[in-house]
């Protein structure tokens, strides 16, 4: 079975400051990795994904995440946050070659302070 740990339930950051949201996973088989974002009263939106290839993946709105197999991590980073980044961020994994669903972490609430 897989598990995902997001140690920080809340991360307060000042606007234009950098941020890192931590994600570690545990799995006995190969996994794909995802970050989803949930804005207030909305569903989950895919932010970025790692399926294969380059371990550094980027989103169109300035977020990036790096897959580190040795540390079983997939931390999310942004060099300069904006008020509009305030949301809940979920890290998730799925088993390579499997047809099952995503295993999510508990989520990190990113709070941007002006």
């Amino acid at each position, binding site marked *: 079975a897989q598990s995902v740990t997001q140690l920080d339930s809340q991360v307060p950051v000042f606007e234009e400051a950098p941020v890192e949201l931590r994600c570690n996973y545990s799995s006995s088989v190969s996994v*794909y990795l*995802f970050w*989803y974002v949930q804005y207030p*009263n*909305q*569903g*989950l*939106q*895919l932010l970025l*994904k790692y*399926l294969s290839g380059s371990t550094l993946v980027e989103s169109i709105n300035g977020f990036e995440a790096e897959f580190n197999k040795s540390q079983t991590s997939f931390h999310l980073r942004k060099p300069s946050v904006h008020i509009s980044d305030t949301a809940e961020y*979920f890290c*998730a994994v*799925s*088993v*390579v*070659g*499997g*047809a*099952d*669903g*995503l*295993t*999510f*972490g*508990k*989520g990190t609430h990113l709070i941007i302070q002006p």
Partner: protein
Amino acid sequence: EPEVTQTPSHQVTQMGQEVILRCVPISNHLYFYWYRQILGQKVEFLVSFYNNEISEKSEIFDDQFSVERPDGSNFTLKIRSTKLEDSAMYFCASSEYANQPQHFGDGTRLSIL
């Protein structure tokens, strides 16, 4: 951009009643999923569905639950004999193929009284 739509956005039901949550996945997607999120907890996988049958299901998805694709567009989750602890946000998702990124709907908030 095509999206997954869920209805209703909020469903209030008396304990013991049956409820059907509806979803319209993205039209060219082949895999469908249901998840739930109890308030304050993580999003949990319930079931995946492909080629008109269940592919995988979690321990949560017991005999109380069932899924169906009644026509070419809808994907439903039925909960029989609802309990207070079924109160949660239920998300539908779809993907073009297995292991491809899943696209989520905005969810149905189910409140059991």
